[in-house]
């Protein structure tokens, strides 16, 4: 889920006419002081992170003068917060407060409705307050077709113990908050405290909004880089992976690094699941076998071979892993040979130096396993393919055995060589790359296995040369599924004239950097 920072959340609330304190964000202490001087003292200065409970952990300071702002800004910027490094602080005018409330909206999966929760006492430790004072907390399920009216919100506030004229202001504020939640595709929206100031205004002193990943595309204004749940901002490698996912709607590719700097402890492996439940089950199996996972990856929903290839290349950009484990549910509806070919291309290109166990169970698993065993048998390490009758636990044990046999050797990242065409090749553009065929070499090839390998009937022989059979536009739009069968056929059964170039922007530079560090 795409979390917004406090300052981003407040910008949204402001659009809906909800009052927020004057202020601004700073990335340096100088900026922080300038903002504080501008809005006038006293001010509050807050770290911008994706977590609540900042006050108790020392991420919020109150200041009466510039010196205090500078001191705290310097302390906060660069502060480690779990895996997160603070790079932004929010400086706001500190307002005289009369009362603090809590207002939140979440989605209740049991009724498939948004729920409004309002508490007439707010501030830090709201969960405990709610437990101790249930009479101060009220909630209401919202009829999605009708929305939330102010009169309904007033009743909720009344049930939470609010009396008097302020009920009106709270009612309209809550209705506006709901409108923001709905229109911004929020999974949750809350403001704590929602404060009543001495001069009678309702002001959101803090706000947290989580945008639904699947709704992010409707809100380009938010500038959300990766619509995924991350405990910290995305790493460089995760951004490279997200680019692959973003530019190819076929299937789903998820990549997250569990450790950003894999220690050379001989325990970490590369993990490549398929499907949510199957991935979890497989992850449990490798953890039970005593491994740790460097990354969590999931390629599912019938991804083409090209996407699995890119996933594997990204996964193999992590040094120090000792094995590669791929496993899904084991009984997949999708044709498993696509994934197999993706692995073959990636593993051959990288001349993989760590053993791998690839469990590709499901439709056409026998074909998939044969592809792996036939084309990867000459690698210096063992790659074993398994199917639906081999359990994840068994496969995890196999990997353990293979890692031992390999002496626990640590993976070294290899340079990513982008294919460089000579310029004279015959070229077919595909959805995310291109097929290059050196027709001069084809002349020496009698078998022409590439044409036979193409199950989608995309290429044909013309004057003894393999060429595109369909409209180039159709090939680009996806009629050529980038199944990689022609390339593998040509490499092993032909003359090696055909190459499929599947660019992965940023990977070359990233790997060069890793290799430099490896050398040290």
């Amino acid at each position, binding site marked *: 889920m795409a979390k917004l920072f406090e300052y981003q959340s407040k910008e949204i609330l402001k659009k809906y006419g909800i009052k927020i304190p004057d202020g601004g964000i700073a990335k340096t202490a100088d900026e922080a002081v300038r903002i504080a001087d501008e809005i006038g003292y006293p001010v509050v200065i807050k770290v911008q992170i994706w977590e609540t409970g900042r006050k108790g952990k020392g991420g919020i300071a109150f200041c009466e003068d510039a010196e205090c702002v500078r001191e705290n800004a310097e302390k906060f910027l660069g502060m480690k917060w779990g895996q997160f490094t603070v790079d932004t602080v929010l400086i706001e005018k500190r307002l005289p407060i009369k009362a603090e409330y809590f207002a939140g909206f979440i989605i209740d999966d049991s009724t498939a409705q948004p729920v409004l929760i309002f508490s007439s006492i707010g501030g830090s430790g709201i969960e405990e307050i709610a437990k101790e004072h249930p009479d101060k907390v009220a909630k209401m399920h919202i009829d999605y077709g009708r929305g939330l009216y102010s009169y309904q919100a007033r009743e909720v506030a009344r049930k939470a113990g609010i009396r008097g004229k302020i009920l009106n202001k709270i009612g309209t504020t809550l209705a506006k908050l709901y409108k923001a939640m709905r229109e911004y595709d929020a999974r949750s929206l809350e403001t704590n405290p929602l404060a009543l100031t001495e001069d009678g205004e309702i002001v959101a002193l803090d706000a947290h909004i989580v945008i639904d990943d699947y709704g992010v595309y409707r809100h380009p204004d938010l500038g959300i880089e990766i619509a995924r749940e991350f405990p910290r901002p995305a790493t460089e490698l995760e951004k490279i992976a997200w680019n692959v996912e973003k530019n190819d709607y076929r299937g*789903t590719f998820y990549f997250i690094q569990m450790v950003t700097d894999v220690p050379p402890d001989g325990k970490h492996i590369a993990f490549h699941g398929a499907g949510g439940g199957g991935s979890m089950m497989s992850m449990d199996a490798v953890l039970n076998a005593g491994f740790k996972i460097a990354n969590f990856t999931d390629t599912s929903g019938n991804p083409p071979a090209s996407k699995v290839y890119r996933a594997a290349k990204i996964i193999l950009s992590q040094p120090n892993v000792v094995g590669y484990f791929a496993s899904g549910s084991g009984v997949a509806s999708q044709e498993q040979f696509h994934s197999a070919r993706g692995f073959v291309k990636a593993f051959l290109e990288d001349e993989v130096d760590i053993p791998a166990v690839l469990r590709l169970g499901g439709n056409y698993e026998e074909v998939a396993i044969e592809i792996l065993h036939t084309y990867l048998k000459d690698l210096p390490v063992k790659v074993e393919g398994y199917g639906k009758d081999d359990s994840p636990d068994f496969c995890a044990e196999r990997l353990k055995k293979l890692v031992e046999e390999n002496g626990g050797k640590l993976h070294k990242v290899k340079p990513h060589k982008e294919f460089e065409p000579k310029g004279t090749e015959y070229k077919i553009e595909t959805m995310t790359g291109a097929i290059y065929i050196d027709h001069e070499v084809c002349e020496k090839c009698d078998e022409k296995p590439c044409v036979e390998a193409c199950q989608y009937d995309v290429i044909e022989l013309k004057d003894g040369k393999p060429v595109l059979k369909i409209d180039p536009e159709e090939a680009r739009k996806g009629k050529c599924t980038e199944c990689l069968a022609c390339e593998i056929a040509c490499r092993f059964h032909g003359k090696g004239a055909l190459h499929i170039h599947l660019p992965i922007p940023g990977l070359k530079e990233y790997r060069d950097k890793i290799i430099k560090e490896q050398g040290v």
Partner: protein
Amino acid sequence: MAILIDENTRVLVQGITGREGRTRTRLMKEYGTNVVAGVTPGKGGQEVEGIPVYDTVFEAWEKHGPIDASAIFVPAPLVKEAALEAIEAGVKLLLLVPDRVPIHDVLEIYDYAKKKGARFIGPNTLGILSPGKAVMGMIGGRAKSAREWFKPGPVGVTSRSGGITSAISYYISKAGLGQSTIVHVGGDAVVGLPHPEIVKLFEKDPQTEVIVMFGEIGTSQEERVAELIKNKEVTKPLVAFIGGKAAQKGTRFSHAGAIVEGNRGSWDSKVNALRDAGAIVVDRITDIPEAVKKVLGK
């Protein structure tokens, strides 16, 4: 008997001319599903796998109604419109196959479906299959595999993961048993027919003797099933596996969630609730067939 679909269910395919729509229509037809019509706006008059294509659901209904169920294979941003159209036309059971449907769209569909007395499975579902009778969606991938992997029998299967739906069912078949109906409820946080609803349907189905459920961390579905068992609304034996024991715990971001749900949604909460209620929770998926056999006295 079976739940939700059988060989008589009259099925419509929305988005029938697309890549997935075409492929899955073939699977459904070959398996024996009674596919009566397809819809793709602007492509009326064509045929896909011998199935006539219409421009709107209303038109398909005029020519082939009544339509009992619609399988939706349109891109995620268009699912809401497709679903609302089918519901308005009078279809009472929808299958929303696509992944990445915005949650607020799901809430809107849910609201309208409830008001019109319609139900839906998904989104983000592999589908449903009643062995030997009919399939909606893409479970099995091809008819040949679906026939090999799934056999008619007394086990009702409901799962939150697509791949695991097939895996569990396959293990059950391999153990010599079979399934009444196999349901992938969908992988999203809000789905039309979550576990508790499916379990209630299995309770009423005479063919089903035992229910197998694959749960996952997140949402309140499994806890609500536990409540149904406790309240005796569900009396058939239930064997469950809950995935995600090892999954990373997220950092706390929402107070509201904690206030409303407390500890609900965690692995411990689900396993404890189910065991307290008397369900059998196994530690490994591969233990399911043995547990089912034991329950059935085989």
